[in-house]
C-alpha cells in the first residue's frame, strides 16, 4: 500500500476513534441525566475494567490457560493482594512487574 493511501486510512481511523471518545462527553456532560442512567453509568468503570482485564489474565491466544506457564494469571494473585492492602497504583505496578520478571527467570 502506498504511503498516501496509508495516510488516508489513518485519517479514517482517527475519525472513527475520536468521535466515540468525544461525543458522549460533549453531549452528556451538561445535562441532568435520568437517575437510572446515572446509576447505570456508575457501574461502567468497574464493568469495563474487569471485562478488559480478566481475558488478559486468564487467556493466552484466546484460550483459557491456568497452568504455571500463564505467569500473568498467577502473578495477578499477589498483585491483587498488594493493590487491596496498599491501595497504591504505583506500588502495585512495581510488584506485578517484579513478579513477572522473577517468574521468567525460572
Amino acid at each position, binding site marked *: 500500500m502506498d504511503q498516501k493511501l496509508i495516510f488516508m486510512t489513518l485519517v479514517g481511523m482517527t475519525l472513527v476513534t475520536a468521535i466515540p*471518545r*468525544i461525543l458522549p462527553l460533549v453531549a452528556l456532560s451538561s445535562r441532568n441525566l435520568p437517575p437510572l442512567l446515572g446509576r447505570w453509568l456508575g457501574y461502567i468503570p*468497574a*464493568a469495563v475494567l474487569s471485562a*478488559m482485564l480478566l481475558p488478559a489474565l486468564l487467556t493466552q491466544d484466546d484460550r*483459557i490457560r491456568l497452568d504455571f506457564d500463564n505467569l500473568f494469571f498467577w502473578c495477578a494473585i499477589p498483585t491483587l493482594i498488594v493493590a487491596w492492602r496498599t491501595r497504591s497504583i504505583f506500588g502495585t505496578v512495581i510488584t506485578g512487574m517484579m513478579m*513477572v520478571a522473577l517468574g521468567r527467570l525460572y
Partner: protein
Amino acid sequence: MVTQSALPTRHRMNDHSTKTDELSELEQKPLNCDRSLTAFTRDDIEKDPGPDKHNAHGTESGALKQASPIIIGYLPIGFAYGVLADKAGLSLVNALLMSVIVFAGSAQLIAVGLFASGAAPMSIIATTFVVNLRHLLMSAALAPAMRRWRKREMTLFGFELTDETFAVHSARFAAGDSKKCVSLQINLLAHASWVGGSLLGIIASELISDVRPVGLDYALPAMFIALLVLQCTRPGLVRVAIFSGIVSVALQQLGVTDWNVILATLLGATFGVMGEKTWTRN
C-alpha cells in the same frame, strides 16, 4: 478486594446530578489551575479534606506521579508498535502520525498487522471502529463529572481518552479529584510517552527482533488490577466486576473476540442496576 477504608470521600461519580445552586457560582469563575475546580455535591464541599487528600491514593496527586504507571506501560508497548509499524512498511511519518492522531494501543497493533497483511483501507477503518467503540461507554461514564468543562477542553480530553487514561481518571473522579489541569496533563504525559515509545521503536526497528522486555509487559495489566480494586468501593461494584469479567471471558471463548468487552460491559452495568433492588431487599 472490597475494603474502602482508605478512601476519604467516597461517592459515585454520578452523584452530583443532585448538585445545585452552590456550583453555579463556581461555574462563573474563570479556569484556574491552582485551585480545585471540582466538588461534586454539597456534601463533598463540606467534607472536602483539602486539596491533597481527596483522591483515592493518598499522596499520589501530581499528574506525573498519577501518569507514571501509564508511562511505564506505554513506552515498551509504543516501542513494540513502532517496531511492528516499520516492519509493516509504514513510513516513519505515517507510523508516528498514527500514534499522534489515533492514539489507541490495541487498535494500532491490530491495524499494523492488517497493513502488513495488505488488508483494504475500509476494513482497517471498520476494525478500528469496532475495537475502539468501548471508549464510547468510558466517555459517557466520565461525562457527569465534567459538567463545568468547556467544549474545547472536553474535545482535547476525549481525543486522548484511552483505556489507561480512562482507568486513571475514573478512579480520580470517583474520589472527587477531577481537576482540569491535572486531568489534561495526565493525558498529555500518556500521549507523549506513547508517541515517544513509538518513535524509539521505529528507529530501533533495524536492530531489534524481540519486542518484549522483561516484566514491562505486565505494567498495564497490573495497573488495571490496582484501578479495578480502587473502583470496587461497594459490594454492588464488586459483583458487577466479577460478573462482567466472567461474561467477557465466556464471550471470548464462544468466539466473540471483537465485541466481548463492550457486550460484557453493557450487561455488567445492567446487571448492577437490576441487582440494586434485589440485593438491598435481601
